[in-house]
Every structure is written in structure tokens, then in C-alpha cells.
């Protein structure tokens, strides 16, 4: 089994939702594209079985944060996902939460070296 196929536990702790929503806020993407974008932008820091993206996408769709539609691009039919209004609100809330947490962690981390 390929090492990268193993799921990174941190991927399951709310981070993927933020990442996926952030990426989809820019433009509509399909599953493979989202995975490659995450790997590219995080420089492979987040490793996971690529198939794991789909349960997340389906969950987000069931929660109406994203919606999907089949589109034909360059002769191939793909399932494209895009953010809904509810998804934008969710993204804003997650980003606020993330900022708050990172600031708190940074403050603690900085305090160690004072």
C-alpha cells in the first residue's frame, strides 16, 4: 500500500471542510481537481487517501454547503462542486474560528519564548 494512501488523522478534524470550502469559494471544481489543489498548495503537507475527498463532498452537499452538477469539459463529463450561499456563510464562520484558534495557539507558542 502506498504511504500516501493512509489518511492523515488531522485531515478528519475539521480542516478538510475549511480547505474544501475555501477552494470552492474561488471556483467550481471536481474531486480530483480539489485533491490536486490541496496537495499543490499545502506542498503535500496534508496526506490522505484521495478517495476520502468524496465522502466529505457528499456530506457537504447533503448539508447544502455545496451543490454539484455534471459538466462536460474538454470532452469529459465531470461532477463539479460549487459553493452555495449557505456554504459561504459556513466558510466565513470556519475562517473566523480558525483565526481565533491560530491566534490563541500563536499567543501560547510566543509566550513559551518570553
Amino acid at each position, binding site marked *: *500500500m502506498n504511504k500516501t*494512501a493512509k489518511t492523515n488523522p488531522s485531515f478528519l478534524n475539521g480542516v478538510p471542510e475549511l480547505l474544501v470550502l475555501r477552494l470552492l469559494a474561488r471556483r467550481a471544481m471536481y*474531486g480530483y481537481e480539489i485533491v490536486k489543489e490541496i496537495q499543490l498548495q499545502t506542498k503535500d503537507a496534508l496526506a490522505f487517501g484521495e*478517495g*476520502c475527498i468524496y465522502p466529505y463532498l457528499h456530506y457537504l452537499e*447533503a448539508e447544502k454547503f455545496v451543490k454539484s452538477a455534471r459538466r462536460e469539459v474538454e470532452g469529459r463529463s465531470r461532477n463539479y462542486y460549487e459553493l452555495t450561499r449557505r456554504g459561504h456563510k459556513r466558510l466565513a464562520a470556519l475562517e473566523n474560528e480558525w483565526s481565533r484558534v491560530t491566534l490563541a495557539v500563536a499567543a501560547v507558542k510566543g509566550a513559551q519564548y518570553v
Partner: protein
Amino acid sequence: MSDPNPITALQRELLKLGCPVKITRRIVREAAEHLEDLEQAGVASGLTPADATTKARGQFGRPDELAQRHMEALRNSSWWGRYPLLGFGLMPLGSVVGVGFLCWLWNMSGFPLAPNFTRFPIHYPWLWTWSFPLFCGFVMALIGLVTVYYCRHCLQAGLGKRWIWAMGGLLALHGLCLHIDSRQVVNLESPPVVLRDEKTALHGKISITFLPPTDLASGSRPMDLSGALSVFKVRHPIKGAPDEILVLKPGENPGYNPGDEWVPADNVMLSDQIAAGWADIQQRQLFEAEDFLSEPGWTASVHPLSTEKYPRSFQKFISSNVEFGHFVWLGEETIQAPLPTLAYGWPRLASNGGWPSWINAALPLLIVAVMLACQKRTGQRLQVDLACANLTAV
């Protein structure tokens, strides 16, 4: 992995875990497309097709793990999946109460087909004939709808067979309770004290549910059914005693001489008890309405079924499964006979004796089995579709 093809393995795992076919189809399709992209990327980077395939499968992840993740996501994305105990354990019980309430409404609202509706008996006698079977049908339709409703949610939430069967079992239990036969269990060889005052020759209750308007107008010959062949179901008040069916046809001079009005039809099978009871009826001329009413514990049940009008199998089914009402005399006003309380202790929701309770109980289980079989068959078709489309050759 036992299956070298991750797509078919993923599909098999999903179906095994109870994933709805529609969702399975979508998951498999997306997975196949993703693997195809991965393989193309591998080839583009200089790998051989075989190596690219191996690498793509490794990157994609194990099918069994992916199937588990998909099912978790599916279950977490609906209320039914998140709270199965509440949705399929407690709510069906609540629905049972709702079904009982609707049955009560049916009976009490004055709806013309309700079993206890007696407002227009003279002008619409057919309402009396069909009120009990229709009520039984109404109850069963409600149970069936409730079962389908919960089955559908259970399948959509991907909860698998266990919860569906649990829910079906609960509703089946409810079906059993719908028709509790509360007749006393006694030893037939030593008749109970409570039956001492009743006719020892025929421990049966017969009730009239239908009489032609002509008889109602005359007011004196409630057993004259104008030539129709009639089926009498004689139900023993003691649990365990076999019910008896009398098939009777009019005598030579129906409607005039009480003793000649009715004779057993050719196919009638009389037990000694029934024959004795029949002889006693004829001897004492119990066909007169007043005599009927004066007999303690006797009510009459007549369901006029013409051999020309209905198939014999239908007659047989109705006669052996449906017990009709409890009205004894139809004159200027309807009098409902007091039922022997010891024979019928509990009110029975399923139509005062409708069809056997196991039918009520079997219906939810049958619906569950059919819906699961349909899902399985659709899943098998999906596998065929995939094989034809060659989607797995990524």
C-alpha cells in the same frame, strides 16, 4: 484486497453495507473518473500503464475503508441516520398510536362505511355488508403505508438490514396486537360455567349484518334473504374450538313458513353440534326475530353471498376469514345486540374479528422483505451495468 479491481470492490462493499443504489452508482462513477485521472497523470509523468494503475490505486485508497467513510458520511448527513434508535425504534411505536387514532376516527366519525354506522341501514344495506372488510383493509393499508415510510427512510439513510428488520418486527408486533383474541381458553370437554345458560348444542354466535329492504319493511322475517345463497359463520366463543361454516339456501317456500325457510345447501358440512343446533333452531322456530332476541347469548351473523355473483374461492375466503357484525334485529330502528362479555373481553381494533392477526403481522415483514429484495436486485443490475460500460477498466 481480495478483488484486484478497486471499483468493483468499492461497489460491492457499498452495497454490502446498505448504501442506496442511486448513491452507490454516483460514488462508483466518481471513483472511476478519479482513478482514470490518476492513471493518466501517472502515464504523463513517464510511468508504464501498469505502474500507473498500481500507483493510482494506492493513491486512491482502500475500497473497504472508502466504503466505510462513505457510509459514515451518508448516515451523518440525515436525521434518520444520526438517530436510528429514535427514528426506527420509538417513532414506529408512535405511529402505531396514530394508526389506532385514525381507526377510532373511522369508526366514530359517522363515516358511512364505518362498522358501527347505522344511520341509513334500510336504504343502503350494502354498506353493512362491506363495512367490516373495508375497515380491515383500511387498517392494513395504514400499517402498510407506515412500514413503507420507515423502510424508505431506513434504506435512504444507509442503515442496513438490521434496523429495517427491527422496525418491521416492531410493526409486526403491533399487527399482532391489533387482533388479540381474548376469548377464554377452557377445556372443551368440561364447558365453563359462564356458558351454562347458552345453547349447549351450538356454542356459536351468529350475527346479522345485512338484510334486504323487503324484510326490513315486513319487520317479521329477518332471515328471508330473497333467494340468495348465504354463508353463516358460526364462531365458537371458546378459544381453540374450530369455527364452523354453514352454507344455506332458501327452502321451497322461503319467507312464509319459518321452519321451511332455510335448509342446508348441498355442500354443507355439519358437525354433530351444528346439526343439533340447527335442528333445535328449526324446532323452536327461532327465525322469528323476537325469538332470536330472547335467546340468551345468541346473535346472528349472515353474509349473503350469491354463487352467481362471486367466485367460490372468494366466498370461501370471506367466510373463513371475516366475521361480520353483531346486529340481530332490524325493524323500525336498529338494535345492536349485546355481545357476551366473557366471549369478547377486549375491544378488538381489527374489525371485531376481521382476518387473523398473523396477516396483520406478516404485512410489515413482507413489505420489508420485498423492499430489501428490490434493493438487492437493483444492486445486481448496477453491477451488470458497470461491466457493460467497462467503467472499471481504468
